[in-house]
């Protein structure tokens, strides 16, 4: 088994800062932004992106703009997977109608998680727009879904494994490809 580090700790930090700038730029400011992380690592990345935005935009309030969205119950592979536990969903505002929601996940692969996330999101209301930010886009989409903000595009083969490690859960911080 060969392992190759494609992003190190600093690369990840830089990608997060860049994505946070891109989000604010595309949104023409921070008005009505709602950043939602998809468990597990998407939640940590969403925290970091939101904090990076708050650092440069004093009007951006984390308590009204950062949340998490569990998609387990909306997955299309529940039948074949061992019983998945679900984790909390926290939407920090009661009405998401006027919000531009940015979904955050670590790796974009088949696109099925994001499909589930879109379905989960509509049970909370009808957002103005939904965007997608991912740390790594590894290709091999099975659905017509693309990311708006990408930390790194990584052409991979289907058999390769991508593991994202973040300091919140792991000892180190890196993105590693193993064959």
């Amino acid at each position: 088994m060969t392992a190759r580090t494609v992003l190190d700790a600093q690369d990840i930090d830089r990608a997060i800062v860049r994505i946070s700038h891109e989000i604010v730029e595309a949104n023409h400011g921070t008005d009505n932004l709602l950043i939602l992380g998809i468990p597990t690592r998407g939640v940590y990345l969403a925290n970091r992106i939101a904090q990076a935005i708050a650092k440069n935009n004093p009007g951006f309030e984390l308590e009204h703009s950062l949340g998490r969205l569990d998609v387990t119950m909306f997955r299309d592979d529940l039948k074949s997977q061992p019983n998945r536990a679900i984790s909390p969903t926290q939407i920090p505002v009661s009405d998401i109608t006027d919000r531009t929601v940015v979904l955050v996940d670590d790796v974009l692969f088949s696109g099925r998680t994001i499909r589930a996330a879109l379905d989960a999101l509509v049970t909370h209301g009808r957002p103005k727009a939904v965007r997608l930010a991912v740390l790594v886009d590894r290709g091999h989409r099975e659905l017509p879904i693309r990311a708006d903000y990408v930390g790194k595009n990584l052409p991979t083969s289907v058999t390769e494994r991508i593991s994202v490690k973040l300091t919140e859960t792991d000892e180190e911080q890196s993105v590693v490809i193993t064959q």
Partner: protein
Amino acid sequence: MKHLLSIDDVSKDEALAILNLATEMREVNTREVRKLPALNGKVVANLFFEDSTRTRISFEIAAKRLSADVVNFTAKGSSVSKGESLKDTVWTLEAMGVDAFVVRHHHSGAPQKIAASNWSKATIINGGDGTHEHPTQALLDALTMRVRLKGASDSGDLAGVRVLIVGDILHSRVARSNALLLRKLGAIVAFAGPSTLLPRTATTLVDEVYFDLDEALENSFDVVMMLRVQSERMNSSFVPNSVEYTALFGLTDERFENLGGKALIMHPGPMNRGLEIASKVADSDSSAISEQVSNGVAVRMAVLYRLLAQESK
């Protein structure tokens, strides 16, 4: 886990997993769309040989919130009145493609019988069998205690919580399931009731047994759970009359006042207001009776999800 027949089959970890899942299901009720697609296409049959309001409707709402289809079978008005047996009833419904049966039966052990037989491959959930068990009631009671005593987002057990269960313990499947589950979760459980309505095994089932309610209430319980006086099972003289029962074992206004609002009041329903529990007590701020009903939906969603979401076990 394929079936939910008895709390005996549920480990502490499994019970906590169900309660924690139910905590997330409670949140679903606050969403704009209160429906999840997890059990889309599954068929849940409520197989009820005994009357019920909350258990049946609660299971029905829970299954529908998870997008399952629900069919309701009640013995009254069915071919059971023409003499069709339990076996043939299950067979018939199985032939129509039922994935899970929620079984309530007046005979103890009926759900176990169906699960152990080859009548059906479906998942069996015990919705209350005779005087044996009512596992989902115990789970919803545990969730209600945890939410009220430890907060809505707590994910731990009930270590050290003191629970007094009062009334007709002998005939109560709710008392039995609760005693098994709450002690598994670390709570200290006591029974109080007239000696004629306490099983001989009471001392092995719980930590403390009282024959005098006033004496029991002096022992600072966090939760007082009143049981219904089951007139349909009172076929011999267990208590002299209802007035005496209320005087000795009812949670009257006076007894409630002496508790000083320190204990959480619970009742599995249906209540006989004025018999085992005074009306004012049931409607007081200390009462968690309506929360028990709402938590019932969340707990049953969690149970259905854990038993049915996976294809083959």
